[in-house]
């Protein structure tokens, strides 16, 4: 669930940033014309530096970084997190990257081609409904009464009217019944327990010490964990994963392509995302 949410962040980053792209393209046209006359440009710029400024260049002479003061120092501290096992993490990041391109993506793509959207969506709803206990308990643990009762209401409605959760009936009839998904990692964060350090797990992806503990705790509240034999349980989880991925093919590539340092980009995105989740 957490992973799914993280992917949705990734996906939304792309949508949001798409807009930024266009501005860039305009600027790049400027660059083009600028680079044509670049020798003259350089000397002109140098003389500008010596003599004073023209209107256009003045923005590049401005040293003030007053925006750093307005940014909440506490947030910055919350986001700063150690990475003592970086060599391991980098190897796992590479491993997951290959796993995605060689296995998960082709499988999800084939699955998407064969299974209709409406079926995939029902499966997605079913798994969301199934993981209700962990979200409910964690809402209670954080004393978020309204959130807990919303979760319960959704679960009861979708399990009955929504036919075992395959149909998100609550989403249809009570669109305001939309509790924020809580997990144990957030609960621990809520109790002021720090992140620990950054860990990239094989298959599961980015996490921290705290969120890993949370993941284990939450798994006890996931009915899928209790399916016997273990291979069947793992198979179901894998299927949930592939089904979820079938909605987001291409998002991982896009964020990776956008990054100059993909490892750092994913690390930072994960930490920022989790920080916000705990804060709200």
């Amino acid at each position, binding site marked *: 669930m957490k992973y799914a*949410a993280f992917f*949705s*962040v990734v*996906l*939304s*980053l*792309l*949508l*949001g*940033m*798409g*807009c*930024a*792209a*266009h*501005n*860039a*393209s*305009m*600027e*790049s*046209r*400027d*660059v083009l014309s*600028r680079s044509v006359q670049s020798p003259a440009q*350089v000397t002109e*710029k*140098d003389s500008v*530096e010596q003599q004073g400024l023209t209107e256009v*260049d003045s*923005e*590049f*002479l401005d*040293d003030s*970084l007053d*925006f*750093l003061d307005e940014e909440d120092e506490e947030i910055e501290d919350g*986001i700063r997190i150690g990475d003592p096992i970086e060599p391991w993490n980098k190897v796992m990041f590479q491993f997951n990257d290959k796993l995605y391109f060689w296995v998960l993506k082709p499988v999800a793509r084939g699955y998407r081609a064969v299974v209709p959207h409406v079926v995939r*969506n029902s499966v*997605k709803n079913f798994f969301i409904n199934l993981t209700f206990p962990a979200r409910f308990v964690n809402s209670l643990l954080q004393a978020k009464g309204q959130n807990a009762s919303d979760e319960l209401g959704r679960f009861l409605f979708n399990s009955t009217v929504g036919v075992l959760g395959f149909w998100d009936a609550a989403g249809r009839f009570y669109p305001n019944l939309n509790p924020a998904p809580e997990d144990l990692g957030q609960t621990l964060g809520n109790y002021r327990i720090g992140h620990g350090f950054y860990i990239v797990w094989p298959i599961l992806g980015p996490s921290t010490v705290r969120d890993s503990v949370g993941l284990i705790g939450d798994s006890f509240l996931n009915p899928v964990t209790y399916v016997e034999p273990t291979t069947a349980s793992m198979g179901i989880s894998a299927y949930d994963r592939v089904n979820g991925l079938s*909605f987001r093919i*291409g998002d991982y*590539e*896009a964020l990776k*392509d*956008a*990054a*100059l*340092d993909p490892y*750092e*980009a994913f*690390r*930072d*995105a994960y930490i*920022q*995302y989790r*920080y*916000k*989740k705990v*804060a709200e």
Partner: protein
Amino acid sequence: MKKFLFAAVFLMVMGMINTASAVEPMEAFREPMEKILKLLGDPQYKETNTENLKRQKITIITNGLFDYTEMAKRALARNWRVFTPAQRQEFRDVFADLLENTYYNKVYGEYTNETVTYQKQHKISDVKARVETLIHRETVDIPVKYSMKLSKGVWRVYDVNIEGVSLIKNYRSQFSKILKKNKPEHLIQRLREKTAQFEKKENSEQ
């Protein structure tokens, strides 16, 4: 009479400047965004040979919407001071190229009738605001917040935040890591190489 006319025109112009700056951040954002969505959904541009025209039109709109220098500055943060003015300008330009090349095909190339709801604006100060939107995509709604700044009478976007993840801060952490061990020139060079890679890829696809 002439003097009076001059005064009248002067006042009118002043009035126009005033109304320009009086535009609410939400409106300053909504109008261009809707134009872009309209262009994206326009079947007229579905054919590949008109793709460039569409791209140009969108570019003109977004150029007015995004404060690119501010984005570059914030992405560098303290490292901005390490860069010379010439390097700053160069950096802004290549950073712009990176964003453009990465996202054009990924996002607008795969546009599937997303719509945007403009939820609310939150004024942080006289010159800072946040506009909250919701992008509706297939089966999910994605909350996207735009940080805007009023400069020279125009509200422009300097950061995009999705579910708590700031685009500019994400780049900031990457850039600061690179600049810890390398000189500004190196970062600019890497951005330039990245752009070259993209253009090569694009050309080979065509």
